[in-house]
C-alpha cells in the first residue's frame, strides 16, 4: 500500500483529520475536489461556537464544549508550526433576542446546555441595558442577548490555510482536483480511483462533505447527509464596534462585517437570492441601525453538510473495517477536536468517551 491513510476531501474536516493523523507519523494522502466543488469550508461564518449547541442532545453539548476548550492549545500549536496567524479570539459571543418569545426560547436552550454539561457551560442572559453597556452601537429595539464567555471566532480561510500548511509540514501528500469516483475495499486495503489514477492505503477516511453519502455506500456505510444553504453578506471595512461575535453579525479582524444566518433547503444550489439576503439585512439593521448606510461588497451562498439530527457522525464501517467517516456541521468549531482526539481515535491510539454517541446506529432505530 502506498499510504497508511487516504483522506477523501480537503475541506476543514479532511484537513483537520489529515493534519492530526500526520502528526501521529502516519503517511497520509488527501484527495480533494477543485474550485467547482461545494465547499462549506470556504463559505462559512467563522464562529467557534458553543452556546446553544446540543440543547437537544447532551453528548453534542459536551463534545462542543470540549472542542472549544481545546482551541487555545490547538491554535498555539498550529500557529507555532506554520506561522499562519488565524485571527482566533476567545472573546465570548452573543445571540441577540429581538422579542420576548425569542428571549424565552433562548433562555430555555441555554439552560438545557448548562444542565447537559453538568454546569461546565457558562452563560448569562443580558437585558438591554447590560447589553448596551457592552456594545453601545446596539439598537434600542434589541431586547437583550444570551452571552457565553466560551464562544469565540476565527478567520476560517486562514484556519484552512494553516491546516494545509501543517499538513505540508508533516509530509501529507495533497492532491487537488482529484475527486474520487470510486473506492474499493480489497486485499486488506482501500483503492481510490479518480481521473488521475489509482491510489492505495491501509485505511480511508471519508471527509468529502456532501459526497460522503455516495462514497459511504461503496464501503457499506449509510451516511445520511442533508443539504442546508446559508447566505452571507460582507460590508466594507468599518471602525471596530463589535468586540465579540454574535450569531448574526460579526466584525472580522480586518474590519469588515459579516452578516448572516439563513437556512434553506434548495438542493445543490449554492447561489444567493434577493429575498433571503433582504431578510438577513433587515434583521442586521434592526440590531445595528447604522448598517443601513454601509456598503456591501460581497454576498455568497454556501451549503452546510447537515445530518438529520444536526449532530456529527463519527463512524467506522462494520462491513469494511478501516473505513471511517467524519460528517458534520460546525467543522470550524470542531477542528480542534478533529485534529486531536478524533484523529487519535482513527489512528487507533485512543477512544474518546463520547465517540459512540455519534455513530450512525442512532439513525437505525427500527420503528415500533
Amino acid at each position: 500500500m502506498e499510504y497508511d491513510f487516504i483522506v477523501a476531501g480537503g475541506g476543514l474536516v479532511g484537513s483537520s483529520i489529515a493534519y492530526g493523523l500526520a502528526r501521529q507519523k502516519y503517511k497520509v494522502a488527501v484527495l480533494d475536489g477543485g474550485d467547482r466543488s461545494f465547499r462549506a469550508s470556504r463559505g462559512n461564518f467563522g464562529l467557534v461556537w458553543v452556546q446553544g449547541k446540543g440543547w437537544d442532545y447532551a453528548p453534542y453539548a459536551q463534545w462542543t464544549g470540549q472542542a472549544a476548550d481545546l482551541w487555545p492549545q490547538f491554535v498555539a500549536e498550529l500557529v507555532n508550526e506554520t506561522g499562519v496567524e488565524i485571527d482566533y479570539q476567545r472573546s465570548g459571543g452573543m445571540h441577540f433576542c429581538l422579542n420576548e418569545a425569542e428571549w424565552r426560547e433562548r433562555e430555555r436552550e441555554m439552560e438545557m446546555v448548562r444542565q447537559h454539561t453538568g454546569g461546565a457551560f457558562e452563560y448569562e442572559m443580558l437585558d438591554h441595558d447590560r447589553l448596551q453597556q457592552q456594545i453601545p452601537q446596539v439598537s434600542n429595539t434589541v431586547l437583550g442577548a444570551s452571552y457565553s464567555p466560551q464562544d469565540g471566532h476565527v478567520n476560517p480561510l486562514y484556519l484552512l490555510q494553516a491546516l494545509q500548511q501543517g499538513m505540508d509540514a508533516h509530509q501529507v501528500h495533497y492532491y487537488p482536483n482529484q475527486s474520487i469516483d470510486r473506492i474499493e475495499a480489497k486485499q486488506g486495503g482501500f483503492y481510490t480511483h479518480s481521473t488521475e489514477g489509482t491510489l492505495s492505503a491501509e485505511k480511508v477516511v471519508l471527509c468529502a462533505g456532501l459526497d460522503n453519502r455516495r462514497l459511504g455506500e461503496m464501503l457499506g456505510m449509510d451516511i445520511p447527509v442533508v443539504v442546508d444553504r446559508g447566505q452571507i453578506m460582507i460590508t466594507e471595512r468599518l471602525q471596530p464596534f463589535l468586540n465579540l461575535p454574535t450569531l448574526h453579525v460579526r466584525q472580522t479582524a480586518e474590519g469588515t462585517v459579516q452578516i448572516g444566518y439563513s437556512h434553506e433547503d434548495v438542493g445543490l444550489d449554492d447561489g444567493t437570492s434577493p429575498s433571503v439576503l433582504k431578510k438577513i439585512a433587515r434583521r442586521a439593521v434592526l440590531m445595528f441601525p447604522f448598517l443601513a448606510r454601509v456598503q456591501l461588497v460581497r454576498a455568497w451562498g454556501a451549503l452546510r453538510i447537515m445530518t438529520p439530527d444536526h449532530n456529527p457522525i463519527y463512524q467506522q464501517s462494520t462491513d469494511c473495517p478501516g473505513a471511517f467517516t467524519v460528517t458534520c456541521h460546525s467543522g470550524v468549531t470542531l477542528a480542534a477536536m478533529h485534529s486531536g482526539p478524533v484523529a487519535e481515535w482513527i489512528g487507533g491510539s485512543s477512544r474518546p468517551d463520547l465517540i459512540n454517541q455519534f455513530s450512525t446506529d442512532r439513525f437505525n432505530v427500527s420503528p415500533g
Partner: protein
Amino acid sequence: MFRLVDETSVDTLKLSIEGREYDVPVGISVAAAVLLCGITRLRNTPVSGSPRLPYCMMGICFDCLMTIDGFPNQQACQLEVRENMTIEIQQGAAELLQQR
C-alpha cells in the same frame, strides 16, 4: 482635461457637485461626470489625506469613493448619473458608526 469622444447632441441632465450645478450627459457614470466637469479630486484618503481621482473605472480599486445623495463610500464609477443627484467630495473615512 477630459471631453466627450462624440460631442454631437447628447441628452443631458442636471446634478450638483460640491453645491455647484452641472449639465452632464445622460447614461454616464458619476466618475465620468466628475472628470468631465473638470473636478480634480473626488476624495481625500483617510490616512494621509492625499487627493484621489478614479483609477480603474471598473469597480475594483475603490479609489473613487464619494458621498452621493448623503450616502458616503459610494463607488462613483459604478453609479449612473441621475437628475438632481447631489455629489460631494469625500473627506477621509466616512463616519458610519455615528447614527444610532
